[in-house]
């Protein structure tokens, strides 16, 4: 591969990179979309649900064309103790029809489709190629990347780093400090094959419809959460573990996942299914607190590389934030190329676009959520309080007469180790975080 020259090089053909490349190509710019995997999505692992609303304006036919597994019509938010579970089980028929809400999808298929759309607009996809370092001109501004191909330098006027949570490119550019364990959780996931009809029977779903379980508690002594999603002919079940907590605990990730899978509320859903893939991936969890400088001279950062994944308890979204930030990076880059000013100030339109989009608005609004959700009380005490309260309420103790909710709440609160003033403070915190 001789030295090539493009208007832009996008590092990483995930959802952020493919959207950046698509938008640039559509604006008439020459774009190289670099992917270190043998195909887009090979390195990518998520829960997974994709919220595709952001694609409506960019690829209007996405709902017909994207490789969707199931449209999510059932969303279960669940708290667990070792032996109990309590869930809010929301179902919406509207989510099963256009314009839809969330969809399960497998990333190798979905990411390959998105990269293919960028190619169709004129982007050049180069797979099996790792970007090894940034090229810089004598003044230090970024002017492309070196790759691990022989004579694999690629010169460009702009580099867009969409190289994921570890983003060596953003760090080499000096836009982000070294990644810290405290900013990350570890997602560990099993994909378990089960026939479509059996999935629909167990989860009480119509054909083609899917369920999304978000779980708090049930991760042993390690802070985190769990999830279960329905694909067309498999279930994705996993745990999300606070990295420092996992490391300190000395527990093995697959053991914690096995505990969740064996929980009496989860095990019957998985019974008889066959493990067909196992994997793990880091999740940038710290939101605004870990966002890098978004632009440097000749370089932009988007997607997980910019910490834009939203991990906020009630809301667990990433692919949509990646796609939106990638598309905005592509737009800002195209505008900067038009003006022939790809300096950091020429690229500052990107931050402004993000500020006025949901990407930073949601992160600002939910900036307190990561700490709140991972706090000891939210992780252990409240699941126990809620489950104990439900158990007391629904256990019939004849001949004892029924006790009122108020009468039950006090001992349940005490058993969960919560003081009245904790409740007041946490109610205020929850209100401030999600209100």
């Amino acid at each position: 591969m001789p030295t090539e020259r493009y208007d832009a090089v996008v590092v990483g053909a995930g959802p952020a990179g493919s959207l950046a490349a698509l938008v640039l190509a559509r604006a008439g710019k020459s774009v190289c979309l670099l992917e270190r995997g043998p195909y887009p999505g090979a390195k990518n692992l998520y829960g997974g649900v994709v919220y595709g609303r952001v694609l409506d304006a960019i690829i209007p036919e996405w709902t017909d064309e994207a490789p969707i597994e199931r449209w999510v019509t059932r969303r279960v938010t669940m708290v667990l103790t070792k032996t109990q579970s309590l869930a809010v089980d929301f179902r919406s028929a509207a989510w099963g029809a256009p314009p839809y809400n969330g969809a399960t999808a497998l990333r190798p298929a979905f990411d390959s489709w998105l990269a293919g759309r960028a190619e169709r607009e004129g982007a050049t996809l180069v797979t099996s190629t790792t970007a090894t370092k940034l090229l810089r001109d004598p003044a230090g501004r970024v002017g492309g990347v070196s790759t691990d191909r022989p004579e694999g330098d690629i010169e460009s006027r702009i580099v867009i780093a969409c190289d994921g949570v570890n983003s060596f490119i953003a760090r080499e550019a000096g836009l982000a400090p070294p990644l810290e364990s405290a900013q990350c959780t570890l997602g560990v996931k099993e994909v378990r094959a089960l026939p479509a009809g059996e999935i629909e029977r167990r989860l009480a779903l119509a054909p083609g419809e899917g369920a999304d379980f978000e779980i708090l508690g049930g991760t042993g002594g390690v802070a985190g959460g769990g999830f279960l999603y329905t694909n067309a002919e498999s279930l994705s079940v996993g745990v999300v573990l606070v990295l420092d907590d996992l490391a300190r605990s000395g527990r093995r990730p697959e053991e914690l996942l096995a505990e969740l899978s064996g929980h009496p509320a989860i095990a019957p859903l998985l019974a008889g299914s066959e493990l067909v893939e196992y994997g793990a991936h880091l999740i940038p969890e710290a939101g605004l607190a870990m966002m890098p400088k978004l632009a440097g001279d000749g370089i932009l950062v988007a997607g997980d590389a910019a910490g834009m994944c939203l991990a906020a308890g009630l809301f667990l979204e990433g692919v949509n934030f990646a796609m939106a930030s990638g598309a905005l990076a592509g737009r800002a880059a195209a505008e900067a190329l038009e003006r022939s000013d790809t300096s950091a100030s020429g690229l500052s339109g990107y931050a402004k676009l993000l500020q006025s989009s949901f990407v930073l608005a949601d992160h600002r609004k939910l900036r307190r959520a990561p700490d709140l959700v991972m706090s000891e009380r939210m992780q252990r005490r409240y699941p126990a309080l809620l489950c104990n309260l439900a158990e007391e309420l629904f256990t019939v103790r004849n001949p004892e007469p029924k006790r009122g909710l108020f009468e039950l709440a006090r001992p349940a609160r005490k058993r969960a180790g919560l003081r009245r003033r904790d409740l007041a403070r946490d109610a205020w915190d929850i209100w401030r975080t999600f209100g």
Partner: protein
Amino acid sequence: MRGESGPEVAFEDRMATTEFRVAPGAHITIDGDTCRGCTTRECITACPANLFAPMADGGVLFSYEQCFECGTCYLVCNEKGAITWNYPVGGAGVAYRRS
């Protein structure tokens, strides 16, 4: 059948469900002296692919062939620089199919 249901599936069988295209060289290097002096060795339990193993002399043995390329090891390592970690050469490493 390999990977039959149940959480008690052997770890090697669990790992065998995932495709790895093994690179000719390791993308992880560790500093043996530093690891021998490490008292926490959190990489050993935290690595989801179980690539790190304790040695009799107090050191740490690692393999790279079945790495998920997540980054857990270098992040939990509390001895700065003991684990140097990069991406495998293009096309090599984990190749998820159903993630």
